[in-house]
């Protein structure tokens, strides 16, 4: 029963909340539909944390997504000793980069008074949730290796069954609690999207890739 609530009811609730409230926020407070950047307040630490975080987390999320969408290709890719270890180690390395950069994000908001002044409770919740999720992700990957492979027949069919509206949880219930917590953490983050600056992930700024560059020029020396 608890498993039904955690792995069927909660994911659906999280997705519905995310969709409905994101639409509502778009209609009601469209101006807040952004990452609410604090780059102008502090850019030194941010550029280290932000670049490292975004490149690593995008690759990691893509791996989670592509493995669920094309399990056959993924299984063929990981099949056979050396390639498996290489790809898994790459993922774990990126995971560690994500952990480090998220820690730096948090340190920056604690240490810099100007940034701390504009930090809301929602920001703290989000930062801690993201740090917890990437730390758990790394531990799961390391302690229960080879997640890249067992994901294909545990989480992937579960997610697919949720999408098909025919929830099947038999494949995820026997997993260790830390793995389950990581699954749930994913849906907690989905539910946080409309309430935090995480909403900027649906503003996917891919136009950056081809728009002309801009140069910021200051008229006076910065303090």
């Amino acid at each position, binding site marked *: 029963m608890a498993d039904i609530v955690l792995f069927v009811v909660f994911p659906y609730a999280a997705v519905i909340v995310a969709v409905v409230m994101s639409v509502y926020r778009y209609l009601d407070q469209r101006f807040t539909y952004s990452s609410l950047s604090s780059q102008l307040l502090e850019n030194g630490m941010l550029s*280290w944390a932000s*670049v490292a975080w975004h490149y*690593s987390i995008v690759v990691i999320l893509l791996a989670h997504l592509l493995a669920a969408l094309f399990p056959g290709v993924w*299984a063929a890719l990981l*099949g056979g000793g050396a390639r498996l270890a290489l790809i*898994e180690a790459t993922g774990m390395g990126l995971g560690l980069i994500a952990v480090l950069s998220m820690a730096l994000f948090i340190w920056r908001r604690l240490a810099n008074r100007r940034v701390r002044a504009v930090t809301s409770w929602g920001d703290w919740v989000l930062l801690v949730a993201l740090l917890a999720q990437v730390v758990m992700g790394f531990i799961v990957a*390391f302690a229960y290796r*080879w997640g890249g492979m067992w994901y294909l*027949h545990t989480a992937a069919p579960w997610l697919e069954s949720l999408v098909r509206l025919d929830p099947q949880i038999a494949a995820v219930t026997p997993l260790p609690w830390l793995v389950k917590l990581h699954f749930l953490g994913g849906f907690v983050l989905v539910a946080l999207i409309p309430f935090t600056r995480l909403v900027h992930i649906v503003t996917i700024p891919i136009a950056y890739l081809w728009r002309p560059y801009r140069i910021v020029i200051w008229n006076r020396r910065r303090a």
Partner: protein
Amino acid sequence: MLIRWLTATLLVTGLLLLGTAYWVQAAPPGQSAEEGEALFQQYCAGCHTVGGGDLSGPDLLGVADRRDRDWLEHWLAEPDTMIAEGDPIALQLLAQYNNVPMPNQHLSLSEIDALLAYLGAPESAHPAEPAQGAALAGNAEAGKDLFTGAQAFANGGTACIACHDTAALGAPGGGLLGPDLTQAAQRYGGEAGLTGVLGTIAFPSMVPIYQNRPLAPQEQVDLAAFLASSAGEAAPSRGVRHATLYLLAFGAMDVFLVGLFIWHRRLPRAGRRLSARR
């Protein structure tokens, strides 16, 4: 008007829910020996035969006469609890069969009734069916490729390496979600026993994966041969396995960190050029 609509909707949904619950509860009880035979093939045949001799578990021919029904019902329902509570027969069986405990298959009461009907029926004393794998020869090399996923299973099951380790693999080895299989051949009655176990995979966490993706007979014997090749060796050291992976993971992190530093050192220089031009 609105209130009447709401009440009606609630009533209908409530009735629907109740109806579904009743329909699910009232599934016909399966007690026939035929259903029992199907259940036996699904859950038990990996380790047991009826009249075909011992595998990793005892031959169950005449078991309904050997033990009383209450004990059998209890044993089928929760063998793990009975062993934990120190039931004398359970402990004796455990010791007799190489300390391989019977897994709890979470059978329902009606499934247990059906199984007992099958085991108690005289016609269930089938002559020993030759084990499927007996005619096939296992190839340890092919088994290794199946284990590591270099060769995919015909029916699409997960490669064993995802969750299992064995000394027959080099570092960093196999997965850790499931038990180490270095001594699987000893535990499950040699290659023949292993082939049986792999033929009807009954371990609860594996059932959802392999139920609809059974291993082909040739795959079973190849894997059994591969697993038997490490018999007698010690299980690989967890420490060495972890250390190897630790080096790989942190090595990858270092590569990315170096990349990040290179990327960052370029940025300020470009910035300096721009400001100098100004």
